[in-house]
């Protein structure tokens, strides 16, 4: 009942006199009659139906009389102002069925009293857009006349559209924020709107986003986080659609299709690497947030492998929050066995949704040396080669001396 009253702007109220008359007092003839005044109003929910939708038509009948009896002095007659409603009937059409029959014997409506009668209706799947009319028939009894009225039902098949205005055509292996605009083209409000994203080799957070109610001719935005951190390189197809209720009818919006090219680039990159030492390396450099979203709780650590051992306390380096386009310096230490060509570094962080992510990057020992301008950097490969070549020469020299001494000894013998 209360919902009917809340329909405010969609309720078209009609007021008319169903039965005549008010007070015909004095100077009247003996056949004077006084009848109650009834108002009839209705509401259709949803305001506009889509083909195949079910809805309700609620009719309210109200006795507008203010007193229970009216006394006519000249006639010395008292008239009862109760209104008797014999039946209310809503007639359907070929395109709109009324699922309930006529409601009879509604009884007496006292002065100021009202009653509401609700009918379930269903639009045909092939119904055309526009206004369709149902026939309302109120049959009065006793001192009340009957009436017939046409109730317009609006049919509108326009669906909801999704638009992603900031959809990138290319994405790195990163987190991206997508603003999904849910556009309600319909004249009436839609409820319980939920945006559903999907795609292969990509994930979304949240997996579906609740938008709520969107007024007619309006739009609302859902914010989604697109995760391509672990995606393989190449084109990805992603689809977006929304589910919503038009009245009590569940509908699915038009599907929005997009193509996204994932490129081989992480959002957190290491730059300006300087390596010092030999055997044990001190790694200094910068970590840069190349992506479009903030990275929280960023921490770098040397991965402990067969050939590389982190050296505490510089085995790990906590950076903290790294905003988009932000950078921070870091320092790590690792012990490296001769045949290791790189130092594996694990970069751990949380995205704006607090989701944990870890990416691995290698700091190449060879290439980084050649790139660095640090005077203290030593080419470990060259030095090692020099050292072990010298040992080989030494061993050859000693071998030659031993061979010579043995040869001489044999001659003497």
């Amino acid at each position, binding site marked *: 009942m209360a919902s009917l009253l809340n329909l405010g702007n969609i309720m078209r109220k009609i007021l008319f006199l169903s039965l005549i008359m008010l007070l015909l007092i004095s100077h009247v003839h003996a056949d004077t009659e006084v009848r109650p005044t009834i108002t009839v109003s209705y509401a259709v929910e949803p305001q506009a139906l889509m083909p195949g939708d079910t809805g309700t038509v609620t009719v309210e009948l109200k006795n507008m009389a203010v007193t229970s009896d009216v006394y006519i002095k000249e006639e010395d007659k008292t008239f009862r102002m109760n209104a008797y409603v014999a039946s209310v009937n809503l007639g359907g059409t070929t395109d709109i069925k009324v699922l309930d029959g006529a409601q009879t014997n509604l009884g007496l409506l006292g002065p100021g009293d009202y009653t509401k009668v609700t009918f379930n209706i269903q639009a045909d799947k092939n119904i055309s857009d526009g206004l369709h009319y149902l026939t309302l028939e109120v049959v009065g009894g006793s001192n009340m006349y009957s009436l017939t009225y046409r109730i317009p039902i609006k049919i509108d098949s326009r669906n909801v559209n999704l638009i992603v205005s900031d959809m990138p055509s290319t994405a790195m292996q990163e987190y991206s924020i997508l603003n999904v605009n849910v556009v309600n083209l319909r004249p009436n409000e839609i409820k319980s709107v939920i945006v559903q994203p999907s795609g292969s080799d990509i994930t979304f957070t949240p997996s579906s986003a609740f938008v709520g109610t969107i007024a007619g001719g309006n739009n609302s935005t859902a914010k989604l986080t697109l995760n391509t951190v672990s995606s393989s390189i190449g084109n990805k197809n992603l689809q977006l659609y929304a589910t919503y209720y038009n009245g009590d009818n569940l509908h699915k919006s038009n599907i929005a299709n997009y193509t996204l090219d994932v490129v081989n680039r992480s959002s957190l990159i290491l730059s300006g690497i300087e390596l*010092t*030492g*030999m*055997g*044990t390396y*001190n790694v200094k450099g910068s970590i840069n947030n190349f992506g479009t979203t903030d990275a929280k709780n960023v921490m770098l650590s040397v991965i402990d492998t067969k050939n590389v*051992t982190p*050296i*505490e*306390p*510089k085995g790990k380096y906590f950076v903290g929050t790294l905003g988009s386009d932000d950078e921070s310096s870091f320092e790590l*230490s690792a*012990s490296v*066995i*001769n045949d290791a060509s790189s130092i594996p570094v694990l970069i751990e962080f949380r995205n704006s949704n607090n989701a944990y992510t870890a990416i691995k990057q290698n700091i190449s020992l060879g290439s980084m040396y050649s790139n660095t301008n640090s005077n203290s950097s*030593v080419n*470990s490969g060259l*030095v*090692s080669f020099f*050292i*072990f070549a010298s*040992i080989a020469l*030494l*061993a050859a020299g*000693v*071998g030659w*001396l*031993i061979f*010579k*001494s*043995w040869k*001489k*000894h044999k001659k*003497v*013998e």
Partner: protein
Amino acid sequence: MNKTLEVLTDPDSFFAKKIKEEIDFKPPLLIIGLIMILGAIAGYISVSTIMSTMASNSPNMGAAYSFGIVGSIIGAILSAILGWLIISGIFHLISSIFGGNGQFSRVLEFTAYGFLPSVFGSVIGIILTYLLFNSIDMTSMSNPENISQLIIKNPYSIASSLVGLVFTVWSANIWIHGIKYARNLTFSNALKTVGIPVVIYLLVQLISLIMAFV
């Protein structure tokens, strides 16, 4: 001095002449003394670097620092003397099995000459030790296990071990000729006398070097 250096290039001729002379411990003591000094220098560099790192990470390490330095110097002296005596004793014992005869003092004298390559080896060892500790940033390390792992796996440390092995082979060649004369052995028996302990030592050293990387 030039006569002494002949042992490096022509040990057989050197000991053939030396056996005819009276036992003279001056050159052997000089060689062992040099080994002691060089060993003490290498020990000082190693221990002072490690101890100063540990002292900077934890206060109240002053006493331990001094003890470590003194300990490393005493350790170098003792290991040189004991090494000389033990190796001489082993050669004397094994040569007895092969019918060797001769004074232990002569074995001591001749064995000491075999340490002469180690003098050069120690000089190279000091240079490599210096380079080793200069290549390691130990200021950030407090865990002794990390330090030892770091030292063992360092290329300079590996190079130092390999140089030690090469000079041991050189020493073994001198010892073969020295023991041959000192214990009046055939070349073959002298080779066995020296070869058995030296090969065992070399194998142990090589295995421990390989095991450090497994």
